[in-house]
């Protein structure tokens, strides 16, 4: 059954509707709380198990020993000396990262966190390699 001008009424009613788009670079875009953005790292939680390095599909993570290690706690007389917890750094190559957040899921100590940070485009690739201390 042919009925001409089916779109006309719809077009007219849309003249009085709100805009569907947002003025993005001038207005902040809101992403969902579950959005997987830049991965952040908390050094004091990391135990250096390197599960994230093995799981990363893009080989974007490197976990290295920090240059400065915390001093061992003072040992009481006669007690067994307790070695200080080692400190680790994380080198995150955002130019390789595919933002799947598999490292966040696999980390046993929750040292890696997914943030809502998504405005990461850059003209210089070297600035995308982040060194978290």
């Amino acid at each position, binding site marked *: *059954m*042919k*009925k*001409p*001008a*089916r*779109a*006309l009424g*719809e*077009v007219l009613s*849309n003249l009085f509707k709100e805009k*569907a788009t947002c003025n993005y670079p001038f207005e902040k875009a809101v*992403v*969902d709380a*579950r*959005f*997987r953005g830049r991965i952040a790292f908390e050094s004091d939680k990391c135990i250096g198990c390197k599960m994230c390095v*093995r*799981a*990363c*599909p*893009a080989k974007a993570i490197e976990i290295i020993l920090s240059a400065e290690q915390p001093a061992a706690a003072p040992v009481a007389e006669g007690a067994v000396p307790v070695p200080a917890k080692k400190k680790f750094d994380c080198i995150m190559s955002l130019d390789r990262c*595919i*933002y*799947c*957040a*598999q490292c966040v*899921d696999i980390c046993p100590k929750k040292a890696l966190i*997914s943030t809502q940070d998504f405005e990461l485009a850059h003209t210089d690739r070297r600035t995308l390699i982040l060194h978290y201390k």
Partner: protein
Amino acid sequence: MSKMTIPLGPQHPALKEPVNFTLVLEGEQITGSTVNLGYNHRGVEKAAESRTFLQDIYLIERVCGICSHSHTTCYITCVEELAKALVPERALAIRTLVAELERVHSHLLWLGIAGYEMGFETLFMYSWRDREQVLDCLEMVSGNRVHYGINTIGGVRRDITAEQKKIILSKISYLEERTKYYVKLGTEEPTVLARTQKVGMLPHDVALERGAVGPTARASAVKRDVRKDEPYLIYDKLDFNLITHDTNDVFGRLVVRVLELVESYKIIRQVLNYLPEGPIAVKVPAKIGPGEAVSRYEAPRGEDFHYVKANGTDKPERVKVRAPTMANYPSVSYMLDGGYLADVPMVIAAIDPCMSCTDRAMVYDNKAGKVQIYGWDDLRKYGIEHYKKRGIDFSKM
């Protein structure tokens, strides 16, 4: 009349993957067409062999942007079968939910592209605006608009909260209203009918012979849908209809896709009401196998097929992917034969390929020895002008 040969592709905005069509023209009519494949060999299958099963999920997800959940679910079904993992019912329900949301987003995208190719840009704008609603649902559930990354070996990575359920239901009722309007628009508007009816004919027996899949086959009255033939996930517990149409043309493919949207809304409601309590994933050891498994999955474009061979290590020995568009190429060549050059964008778009990059088509006139270069825009304009001369004009609506 002299014959002309037009190469279409390999880089082309209407093609899902780079592919080359060689069209032989007599005047405006196509007398022969060949499909040449092999331009987009990324080596995904080989790359999968050097990554672990878990890492492969994210690689396989990138086989296709729009069917990203289809490919991972198909792959993961194989892996879980090899690992003999018992996936919790709630995880299967969430996978089904994301699969149907993906189908809605893919079909709305197709509807917009079909509108654009026929020169009906109002439809393109409206259907893509409505598609944002379902993309918002997907971002809310999974954390991303395109590469959802919801699957993991043994279950899913994100759960669904009661609040999310409410939001999805409200967005689905909005989309249902809109789809009712699209059904009216697609089946009653004379300009749409003039551009789609009797275009790109694929008779029932040819569709069977050439192994067409998905909406392309269903528009030729082939009752073929993996969700019905070999239910996976929780489709055996759901009540939905298998949509077919018997006009065998682009119009039939439009009707099948739009009516499938309505079925998808039905499925989404049923899944959200069904959603059993329980864990969303089970632990699966990293080393899997040895053994081999195949699985089939009804992606928005048709049947997707994956084969995985494991040898007892943490990496697969072989992964094979057969995407649905591949199965539909033989039919495209049949559909183009005997049609007009002006209909080529419509016919190719009707198997649901997706936008990639721009291309120029070259028209070579043997007689005059002249070469004319057509960009995709020029070819589209040519199609619109061709029909304008015959009184089919969207600007007069």
